[in-house]
């Protein structure tokens, strides 16, 4: 059984931003603090530490989760993706902005940037779940991430832009794909 005493650190192994990372952390450390302090991933933002503001939202096993409400030791065996890993997801040399990041930039969907990593994770989770959202659905999903700077409208614009672009790309890919493999790809999508 995996366990640690109050003062004991627990060796934790997780896949973080595509790489296997090992770190040793006390049970009391939140996942947010463990990622920030043990792995230097300061792109994980702590805005309230009680699970409301959403700034700490990252991807855990492919879905958005609040890292301030998880423990560092709970990362063990999981796949973690923080905002630092988004350019990696975009492929290439890791210096190309992910489509969502680029859309945020073009739509002025960030000002101070503090809520942005959490917003990006939530937006990504939304589009993974619902590739064709309405503006209302985008607003509803994003309502779990508080932003004090933008008034939200441009964030909604950015997410809708990416959704539309993906639909266009998917339609083009569909048109170019023979029907058998088309069925397979929609089953995965």
């Amino acid at each position, binding site marked *: 059984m995996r366990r640690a005493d109050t003062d004991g650190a627990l060796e934790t192994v997780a896949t973080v931003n595509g790489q296997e990372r090992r770190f040793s952390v006390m049970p*009391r*450390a939140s996942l947010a603090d463990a990622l*920030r302090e043990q792995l230097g*991933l*300061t*792109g*994980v*933002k*702590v*805005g*309230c*530490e*009680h699970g*409301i*503001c959403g*700034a700490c939202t990252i991807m855990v096993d492919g879905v958005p989760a609040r890292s301030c409400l998880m423990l560092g030791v709970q990362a063990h065996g999981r796949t973690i993706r*923080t*905002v*630092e890993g*988004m*350019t990696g997801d975009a492929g290439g040399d890791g210096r190309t*902005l992910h489509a969502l*990041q680029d859309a*945020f*930039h*073009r739509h*002025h969907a*960030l*000002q*101070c*940037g*503090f*809520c*942005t*990593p959490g917003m*990006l994770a939530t937006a990504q989770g939304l589009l993974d779940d619902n590739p064709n959202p309405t*503006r209302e659905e*985008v*607003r*509803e999903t*994003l*309502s*779990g*991430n*508080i*932003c*004090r*700077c*933008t*008034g*939200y*409208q*441009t*964030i*909604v614009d950015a997410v809708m832009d990416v959704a539309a672009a993906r639909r266009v790309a998917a339609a083009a890919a569909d048109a170019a794909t023979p029907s058998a493999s088309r069925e397979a790809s929609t089953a995965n999508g």
Partner: protein
Amino acid sequence: MGKGDVAYIRPKSIGVSVPRREDPGLLTGRARYVADIVLPDMLHAAVLRSPIAHGRITSIDVSAAAAMPGVVLVWTGRDVRERCSGLPATMDIPGFVGTVQPVLADDEICFAGEGIAVAVATTRALAEDALEAIVVIFEDYPIVGDVAAAKTAENLANAKVPRNLLYYSDRLSDDVETAFAQAAAKVEGCFRTPRVNASPMEPRGFVARYEWTSKTLTCWSATQMPNLIKTLLAIFLNFPEQNLEVITPFVGGGFGQKAHLHTEEALACLLSIELGRPVSWIEDRQENLLRAPQAKQQVNEMAMAFDSEGRILAMRDSVTTDAGAYNTIPWTALIEGHSGILVATDPYRVPAAALESFSLVTNKCPIGAYRGVGFTGPVLAREILLDRGARALGISPFEIRRRNVLRKEDFPYVSRVGHTIREGTFLETVDKLEAMIDYPAFLERQAAARKEGRYLGLGLSIFSEPTGIGTRTMHFLDSPITSHDTATVRVEPTGKVTVTTGTVTAGQGHHTTLAQIAADAFGIPVEDVTINMGSTKHSVGFGTVASRSAVIGAGTIGRASEMVRVKIRAVAARLLQAEPDEIEMSEGMVHVRGDPGRGMPFAQVVGAIYFADATHPEDFDPALEATAAYDPADIILANGGHAAIVEVDIETGLVRVERMYAVEDCGKMINPVVVEGQIRGGVAQGIGMILLEELIYDANGQLVTATLQDYLLPTADDVPDIEIAHLETPSDLVPAGIKGMGESAMISSPAAVAGAVNDALACLGITIEQFPASPQRIFDAVSAAGKSR
């Protein structure tokens, strides 16, 4: 040249929505905020905060805390007082009562949340553990819980403030009684705006590093006013200013909350000096709600008198500010109601006004600056009363404003308070809003909804905003502060430009917008300019507050650029065989005006200055670097308006904001998309203040709303799409005609939302004067009106 001089800058990049260069670092999580600063040997501080609202520490025992694992030091107020006697905040006007706030309270405690001890440990968690082991015994004093109690002066909230009064002003006392007696319509109300928290997504934080070998103190602060806090720390801590540096990393929002010197900042410095190690203090959200400067809580008892045509005959306003237990630095309690009455009449012709303000202390966390400062409260009262006047006289809310706003033929108009208003598109704003809303269509919709038992409302607000705030504006606001800002402009040997500025940013995009200004000053591409900001080692500035950075940026960069341009013109004139005053810079070229073919690339002229002595005129100083100050010659007024359409569900009390509209005239916009971002963010905050946000203290002076579960910030579900229109009245006090606008939406949109709620319920005879208009308050009002089903 004087510091108010306006350099010529021709807009080319100015006016373009250049995408922000700060974005990639922010989007990828690579940009560093103060909580991301990690230094060798760094320690973490946690502050023990008073659980009682008013009283005295009779004993405090930190011995157990000091012995806990990882704990390096525990101090009480007594330890700190030996090193710093407190932070004085005062204003140099007769009758003002200054206060000195202890860095840690050691005698009288004046609000729940006031710091009373600090633990420093190897981690924040261990420091917090240590706080739990500190044993404190208190003696309770009576609590002054609100301004009503403060006014009776039966008990004192702060022993050093006689009668709980920091400042009283009967700023203006025209005879308004005659006007009220003769009025065709009189309206009045007692409007209570809530106590709110600016709530930037990044709470406050500070890292201090004292290096004993060089006796230097380096600080990182999430601040909007690095130079101010550097100078004040030097004074209050008796530390040589030349060895003190304040660095501003990326800041996650400020909105005025980070435009103060905080007690915790002084404390972190003292701790680092004592320990010889870096000390980091990063507050969490609870601490922020409890202790960061609060704002907006005013009571405006306002009345307006109209003639039969709806023209304003007189206004009366008595504003009471609940200042909390101390003045904050540098604004003091005057930042709230008192500032507000000084601009309360501005967009309108008001022939007679009686305006007074009370600034009172209570046993609550001190107030400070928050976007729109004291202007918000009186604007809300005024605009709702205009709507009521309109209803009483059977005039539309647009028409009553048309009949009263200042028009071109009125300029210059001297308000009763003495503010000379020379420009503004007030009338155009009213017309624009009416067109955007399609008022007749709204009235039809409102009537149809009422038949279905649904209540729609429209609220309006017309505003003017003092921007680019410098010395003259501060003096007008009875806050005789002198602001001091400079920029250093250097043209590099390869023709690129670096600008060092005292402006910092908390999300406003200054790295980009100031580059646009500097690029246009030299007629070069914006990519060829880099703005350096964020260290007091190289810059001087008052602060990024008060809608001033665009103006101050343009002014300082303009003047400094001109000092360098003179040299470039001199050498170019020689090379082109023309007169220096015929030389112009545009499109990357230095050329004769009107003859672009007769010119040379900018970089070539610059290269000549650096490397070709033969091209220099006689007695030529080739330094292509200059520093200049700028302080606007007068108040720079922007203007605009807002409108809100809401639906009130009278069964549940819930209010939905259906649509928002904004008109903004901030002169020449540097970056339109950035301007719109400021408007949208401010509107969201306005909606929050009117419908959701409220810091609630109970009868024991305890803050009940100490988490985000209870302090409700607006989310994407609460803020609709906002339609924005722009007008442009360039300022002749600022290069390129730029004005500021950062606070506009918080000055004015609360009034529009509040007015809309009132408009929705007016047909039921209900008025809402206390905000936020929470579901409970709406329910109570509807019940009282006996209209609930």
